[in-house]
């Protein structure tokens, strides 16, 4: 009973909290290294910010869709939790080892589009709505790429189960076997988590976009959910391309944690180094360049699986 019900829930909650905190600290470290001033201790700053948001009131806008507005951050956090639940920490330590866990991750990506649009739309406010519109335009583009890339890693495993995908990388990690896969998937990750250059939904030109009208605890939940989604994505990327828990000397959970940290660092660094792409360029890039590349990746993976 404990191992089937409570342990998975505890694992996911632990990852939501620790992962969210790790993202906040790492992002501040990256910012500090790049010359953005940081006050006080980098380790305490995320908690001070969380405390401030807890003391701040949740504001109202003129006639919002209250239920949807309040639910959207929680739903996004739940989606991140769903993603984290299918990341295997070792051959036996998985919150939920579904035989269709790759498909479940695909549904998380698709539902994220719905939840983010809901967040922007339900505020009944202009800049938030534009953020929602933009995300839908972008979401359609990246989901297709993600689908092809993930089918690519499922082919050598002959399974849609992440534990099998890891097991199939025993001899050679997918990052080498399918060289186009990880770079494409990282771009998908920036899009899906609307981070850095692909942050079109909560961007500076929209004064925070879908989050431009929220304050207090809902904003804290939204920020945590965004951080948790980055962690979940890093977990899936490490599982699908970097051999998951595989590695010499160290225990499996430590290996995947290190790999997730590496992916997170790359995403956060890209987020701080690159400017935000213009939406039209972004969609053109996705459809004209990256989607054909994902076809090639899939064909490459298919030929590799046949040989």
């Amino acid at each position: 009973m404990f191992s089937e019900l409570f342990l998975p829930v505890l694992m996911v909650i632990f990852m939501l909290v620790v992962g969210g905190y790790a993202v906040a600290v790492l992002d501040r470290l990256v910012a500090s290294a790049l010359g953005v001033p940081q006050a006080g201790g980098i380790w305490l700053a995320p908690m001070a910010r969380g405390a401030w948001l807890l003391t701040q009131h949740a504001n109202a806008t003129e006639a919002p869709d209250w239920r949807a507005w309040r639910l959207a951050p929680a739903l996004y956090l739940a989606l991140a939790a769903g993603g984290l639940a299918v990341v295997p920490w070792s051959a036996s330590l998985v919150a939920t080892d579904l035989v269709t866990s790759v498909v479940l991750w695909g549904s998380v990506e698709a539902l994220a589009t719905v939840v983010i649009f809901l967040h922007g739309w339900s505020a009944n406010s202009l800049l938030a709505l534009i953020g929602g519109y933009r995300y839908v335009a972008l979401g359609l583009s990246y989901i297709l790429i993600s689908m092809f890339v993930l089918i690519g890693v499922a082919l050598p495993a002959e399974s849609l189960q992440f534990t099998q995908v890891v097991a199939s990388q025993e001899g050679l990690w997918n990052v080498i076997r399918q060289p186009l896969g990880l770079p494409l998937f990282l771009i998908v990750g920036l899009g899906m988590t609307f981070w850095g250059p692909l942050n079109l939904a909560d961007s500076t030109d929209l004064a925070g976009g879908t989050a431009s009208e929220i304050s207090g605890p809902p904003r804290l939940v939204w920020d945590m959910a965004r951080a948790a989604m980055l962690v979940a994505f890093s977990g899936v990327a490490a599982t699908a391309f970097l051999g998951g828990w595989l590695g010499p000397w160290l225990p499996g959970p430590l290996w995947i944690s290190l790999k997730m940290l590496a992916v997170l660092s790359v995403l956060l660094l890209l987020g701080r180094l690159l400017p935000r792409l213009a939406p039209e360029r972004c969609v053109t890039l996705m459809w004209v360049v990256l989607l054909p590349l994902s076809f090639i990746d899939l064909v490459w993976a298919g030929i590799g699986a046949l040989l």
Partner: protein
Amino acid sequence: MAVSWLHKFAARGRVPVFPVLGKQGDGVLRHLALSPRIELVDSPRHASVLLVAGEVPADRCEPLRRVHDQLPYPFTTLWFRSEPWPHLERVARIDDLDDLPGALVTAHRELMEGRRGSAHRLLPDEPPNPWEGEGDFGQGGEGMMGGVPYGRPMAMNMEDDIRDGLTLDSLTFRLGPFFFAFPPGMAAEITLQGDLVQTWKTQLAPYPQPLDEVFFDARQRPVPIAEVELARARHHLHQLFHALHLAGLENVSLRTLRLAHGLSTSSTLDGLRRALSRRGFFRLTAGGGVLGPEQARMIGGPAARAAGLDDDLRAEDAGYRRLGFSPVCQTAGDTHARWRQLLDEIDQSLHLARLAERDRVHTERTGSVETPRGPWSARRPADASALFDELLPGLEWGDALATVASLDVAGLADQPVGTRPSGESRAVRGGTGNDV
């Protein structure tokens, strides 16, 4: 106990400040941006302190009240070089720029620790327009369509799409005069379809912008060219700082600001230019906003030269000619060309400043001067914000804002930087406003 601990902890973080810019208030932004304890935020919902910087003209007071009421509880306000409204309780006024970061930190800390009460709402909590809804869903029209339920039309497909035939509902709204991405003081009524600008009508022109005193002096008497060119480069770097923040390049924007603060004849632009180029600022970011020849002439200055017009009053000054000056130009006339132009002009200004300092060269022509905003001969460069009305329709939102950031459209103020606008009351250092 737990609550008290939480509040004390909250007081330790960076202070989220939403700046409302009055006349000559934008210098405050650049000062605070480099302060590690202050976080300038773009939305009033994300702030703990509302900072009113500079004198807010009477026609912007109503929007200021609305912005004031958008800050979530608990919040407080602080007025910088501006007299707080008499009916506000316990509102501090600060006049010394160096005291400002400390005052903001103190205000936030006192607020969090309960030693200072939250500000109160100024307006009644009711819709700005009366409810005029009718029908099953209160939409005010027939069926699911039409109506003006709160005095504003429903988002409806009333205009043809001007881009690709994908017709979305039109959404009309007013933005400004305190929207961070607009020139200070500017407000516009905009209609969007999706994120495509359908119509743009500038309703309030930006405040006239003050320039460095050296440009005023140059009209009266010969001044060292090194001084003029450093002031010009600094002005352009400030414009670039705002644009880079808008583009999401926070670290490079702060680097630009640091360069502007420490600018001297030994400064170089190479590192900044390389960073912008490597990070794709000229290729990846929002662009558009091509100026035609007439429009370029109307704005003048670097924007005109970015569109291929080589007008520059410096070419008529013997002092500049001795330094080998000739105008640099681009041809494309779009947003990216304007950024390239600005970087080229900063480079050129630094080069001229170095030569002029070495040879002690002064300007020789008085009565006119090429300001960073454009030529100032008989008349000061005037406000050109009405140009946005024809330039921005057809652009996506990101492109439109990038275009706004790349164009220096505000007219020139009649007094240099640091001069108090006429009619402003005497400074009361650290004083407080009156009680209700």
